[in-house]
């Protein structure tokens, strides 16, 4: 049952917390405080409990009702808990300026943000209801009720942003007086909307087995997956699929892989579904498609028409035919996730990527006879950060170590305090010179946490396997925490093992290579750029699969012409932004630079760049390597074809960025007349770029728009084009002063009310900015040039 509860002081009592907010506003903004004539604060809870109405009502009565001081507003659940009407109208009646003009600001914790209040509320309700259910959910929030005839929307926004809500982890909205007086916000549908996880309305059927709200560590129901796969087969003429048994590795998190690696050692690969490639992969043995993705720019800037390039329709036909052929020849169930058709330009373009899972038998498995076990590797001590060094614990540890040495149980010991596991391994060449295996079953979280970050207090011990049990008993008897995480070996490789299979491996020579580019640092594939992850979402999966990218919630499509796919995470509003494009031989660093800047302008934090060659030329590989060097971004080469085919020399490029909140993605169009337009230089080393991407600062959300400008924007025409494009949608105009050349960067617009806060933050963070003009209501772009002459361009004409 869904319900919304609002509780606050009765009309007869003063509201100290609301008065406190009023006092604080008065200190900063006295004129605004004068316009607020009356203020109240209420606590809100959106709840869903798997219980009958009577039980929930009883629970609310017990938990929320304080009959002496509080009123509880519940819609129609508990009308007697409030005043005579049972609505906020009762509270409004107590305002000294009746009938008054009322406004509401409502804030709530963002989903998946740690919400202590909601946890306690849920616990309290569950205590009263007498049982717990996985589906019970509570989101907490507050409602500020204000009365003031002279209050305008910008005032309320200012209060919400600056005093009421913390936008990093709370979202807010304004409520009108009519909405406050009505009870519609208590309806189940409205409450469900707040509690619903983001992907619920847009998720694909195939994702059912990874449905939102379900814990990720639940075992997958393979029969259900098989059923779904069968139902999604493209053609009914395809033979019955294999039964999905345990011997098939159906991988939920597929990563993008490079074809440079040995194909035999991979469990999956990604490639474009060109016909000959499918045939090539079909020869490799048993395989199965897990998903097929088609993501394409709706407006391809470099589209060359059907005459010059291969027809996208032909590409699609090839794709579908190929899938059917593979399905019939390999007896493999095939699932097509979604093909996004964009008809914006009437000539859609496509490229396709997909995943293949290879039979588990092809995986490298570790056999007992191959395991040259010399020493078991133990981590002893505290792995958690922030544990204070405890001298008495250290003394116990040292005495245990001496005891172990005496008993010939410990072969070697490596100090781990203040160093990461990687540093420990690298600093002990002699112990690990023949290779070692790390077994991460059950301790993956611990491993991830300590692999590259410093351990608080601990040692790595090499333990004689014959004395292992004895040592374990000693450690347990002395209360010393330990983890057995691997063995040394004679394989000459450093391997990470999971479930008996090799998850990743590098040779010992590569591991100890002194260069920073050692593959060891990529064992966990942490994002290489940017290093700082200040605004990193709370629970972000580094390994995403193509399925994530394929889903495109229509509601969140950002721009009329932007080839952007937004994908909110299944658990919260953070997500991925994929900006793709097809680029011909004119591809150069400026193109990539521009695409990345567009991502940044929208508020994305660049994660990686992926290149798929529809049909590539060899020289591009050098270009890509150079870009990786220049930008520090891992460019994944998905497929190389060294023999170019005629006519199709395109590079399919995807920029993948992560977004803290997909709802807050900025668009390019200017929003309101009288907004101020600023210029921010957009080199990737500039603090302005970091600020726009959300790594620093907190007022990015105050921006109304951000337009990316190409780095070869010396040409005034390109700057003008970008501005016109941003003004087109709302038929606005602008008056700008362009008295010098603009290189790559951003034009941003900000409202008059927000500009002080934004400018102050820019000054604090050292973000260079320049005021260039204002947005106007008439659809003309008026440019004051270097010679101080005015040039007027009609927006409609230029477009």
């Amino acid at each position, binding site marked *: 049952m869904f319900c919304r509860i609002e509780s606050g*002081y*009765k009309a*007869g*009592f*003063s509201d*100290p*917390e609301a*008065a*406190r907010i009023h006092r604080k506003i008065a200190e900063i903004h006295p004129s605004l405080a004068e316009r607020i004539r009356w203020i109240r604060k209420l606590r809100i809870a959106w709840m869903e409990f798997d219980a009958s109405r009577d039980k929930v009502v009883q629970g609310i009565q*017990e*938990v*929320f009702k*304080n*009959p*002496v*001081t509080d009123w509880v507003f519940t819609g129609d659940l508990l009308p007697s808990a409030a005043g005579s009407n049972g609505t906020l109208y009762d509270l409004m009646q107590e305002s000294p300026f009746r009938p008054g003009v009322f406004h509401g600001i409502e804030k709530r914790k963002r989903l998946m943000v740690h919400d*202590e*209040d909601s946890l*306690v*509320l849920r*616990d*309290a309700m569950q*205590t*009263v209801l*007498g049982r717990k259910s996985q589906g019970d959910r509570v989101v907490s929030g507050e409602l500020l009720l204000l009365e003031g005839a002279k209050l305008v929307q910008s005032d309320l926004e200012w209060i919400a942003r600056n005093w009421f809500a913390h936008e990093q982890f709370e979202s807010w909205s304004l409520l009108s007086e009519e909405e406050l007086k009505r009870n519609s916000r208590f309806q189940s549908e409205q409450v469900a909307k707040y509690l619903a996880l983001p992907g619920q309305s847009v998720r694909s059927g195939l994702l059912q087995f990874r449905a939102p709200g379900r814990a990720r560590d639940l075992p997958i129901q393979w029969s259900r997956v098989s059923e779904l796969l069968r139902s999604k087969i493209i053609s009914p003429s395809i033979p019955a699929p294999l039964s999905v048994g345990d011997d098939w590795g159906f991988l939920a998190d597929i990563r993008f892989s490079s074809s440079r690696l040995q194909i035999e050692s991979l469990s999956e690969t990604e490639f474009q579904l060109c016909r000959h490639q499918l045939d090539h992969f079909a020869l490799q043995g048993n395989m199965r498609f897990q998903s097929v993705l088609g993501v394409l720019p709706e407006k391809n800037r470099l589209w060359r028409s059907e005459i010059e390039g291969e027809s996208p329709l032909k590409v699609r036909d090839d794709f579908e035919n190929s899938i059917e052929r593979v399905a019939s020849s390999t007896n493999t169930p095939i699932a097509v996730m979604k093909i996004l058709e964009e008809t914006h330009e009437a000539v859609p373009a496509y490229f396709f990527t997909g995943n293949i899972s290879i039979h588990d038998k092809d995986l490298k498995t570790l056999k007992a006879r191959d395991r040259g076990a010399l020493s078991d590797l133990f981590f002893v001590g505290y792995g958690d950060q922030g544990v204070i060094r405890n001298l008495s614990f250290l003394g116990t540890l040292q005495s245990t170590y001496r005891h172990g040495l005496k008993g010939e149980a410990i072969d070697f010991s490596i100090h781990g305090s203040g160093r990461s596991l990687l540093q420990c391994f690298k600093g002990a060449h002699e112990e690990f010179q023949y290779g070692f295996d790390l077994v991460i079953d059950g301790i993956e979280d611990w491993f991830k946490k300590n692999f590259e970050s410093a351990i608080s207090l601990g040692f790595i011990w090499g333990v004689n396997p014959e004395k292992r049990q004895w040592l374990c008993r000693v450690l347990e008897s002395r209360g010393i925490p330990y983890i057995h995480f691997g063995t040394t070996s004679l394989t000459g490789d450093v391997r990470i093992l999971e479930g008996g299979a090799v998850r990743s491996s590098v040779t010992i020579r590569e591991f100890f290579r002194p260069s920073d580019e050692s593959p060891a640092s990529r064992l966990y594939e942490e994002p290489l750029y940017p290093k700082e992850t200040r605004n990193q979402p709370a629970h972000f999966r580094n390994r995403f699969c193509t399925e994530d990218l394929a889903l495109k919630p229509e509601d969140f499509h950002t721009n009329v012409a932007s080839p952007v796919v937004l994908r909110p995470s299944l658990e919260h509003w953070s997500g991925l932004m994929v900006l793709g494009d097809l680029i011909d031989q004119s591809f150069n660093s400026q193109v990539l630079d521009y695409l990345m800047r567009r991502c940044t302008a929208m508020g994305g934090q660049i994660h990686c760049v992926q290149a798929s060659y529809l049909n590539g030329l060899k020289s591009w590989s050098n270009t890509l390597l150079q870009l990786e060097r220049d930008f520090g971004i891992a460019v994944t080469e998905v497929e190389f074809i060294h023999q170019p085919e005629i006519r199709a020399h395109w590079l399919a490029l995807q920029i993948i960025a992560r977004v803290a909140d997909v709802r807050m993605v900025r668009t390019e169009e200017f929003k309101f007349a009288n907004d101020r337009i600023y210029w921010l230089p957009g080199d990737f080393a500039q603090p302005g770029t970091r600020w726009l991407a959300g790594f620093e600062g907190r007022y990015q959300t105050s921006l109304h728009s951000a337009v990316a400008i190409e780095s070869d924007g010396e040409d005034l025409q390109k700057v003008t084009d970008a501005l016109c494009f941003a003004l087109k949608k709302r038929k606005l105009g602008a008056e700008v002063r362009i008295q010098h050349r603009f290189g790559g960067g951003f034009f941003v617009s900000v409202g008059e009310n927000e500009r002080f806060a934004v400018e102050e933050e820019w000054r604090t963070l050292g973000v260079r900015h320049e005021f260039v003009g204002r947005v106007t209501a008439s659809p003309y772009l008026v440019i004051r040039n270097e010679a101080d002459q005015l040039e007027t361009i009609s927006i409609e004409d230029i477009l």
Partner: protein
Amino acid sequence: MSKYRALILSAPGNRGERHFEHALRSVGFDAEILSVPEVVDYGIDLDQLCLKYKLLIIPGGNSYSSVLGGGKVLALKMRHLFRWNLQRFAERGGLVLGVGTGFEALLHMNVFGDDYTLRSNGSFETTVKWIKAVPTGSRCIWLKGLGTIELPMNLLDTEFVIEPGSVVEATGRLERLGLACLRSAENDGILGLCDLTGRILGMMPNPEFFLSWTNAEDWFLNPTRAAAPGQGYAIFENAARYCEQ
């Protein structure tokens, strides 16, 4: 003296449990601190509580982050999870002391009636202040024989509130039955309530933080009394004396 057992109920956010433990042990109780999950695990329902323990302490602090108001969630736990009825416990001879938000928890359990509560007075003071409190009446066992005492108090931003619709009746009831057993020496405001048996005491000042004379702010002005017990100590001595009888 034979040792009676005392239970100190510890909830997330509470503080002062160790002080209570020290105080009770020093007056002869066998004190035990149990958290909420431990009480559930050990199956201490009302019968077990009456059987095993002579005294129950509900410390102050910010139990459960004071969501829903101080002590509210703890009161719900005691009523619905533990199935405790503290009036019944008192009738069977048990003693209960709730301090700070522990007092609020007792109010939320309607131990003293349902017309009273504590609420914020708008000062938002978070410091500790020493206040003079005057025990009134002779009903409360905990305060028996005490004169004006000076105790530290954390709940400075809180005031005692009576249901506006029944102020006259509720106030009259407190006066008539002598339930308002602790008042402020400064403004005569209510600082503590006891129940009809006199065995349940809820109070806003914190006696557990004044067990030794050196706990006082100005103890060094009178260093010869450094070894003397604090004024909060007398409350626990009263409890021990009552159990002995």
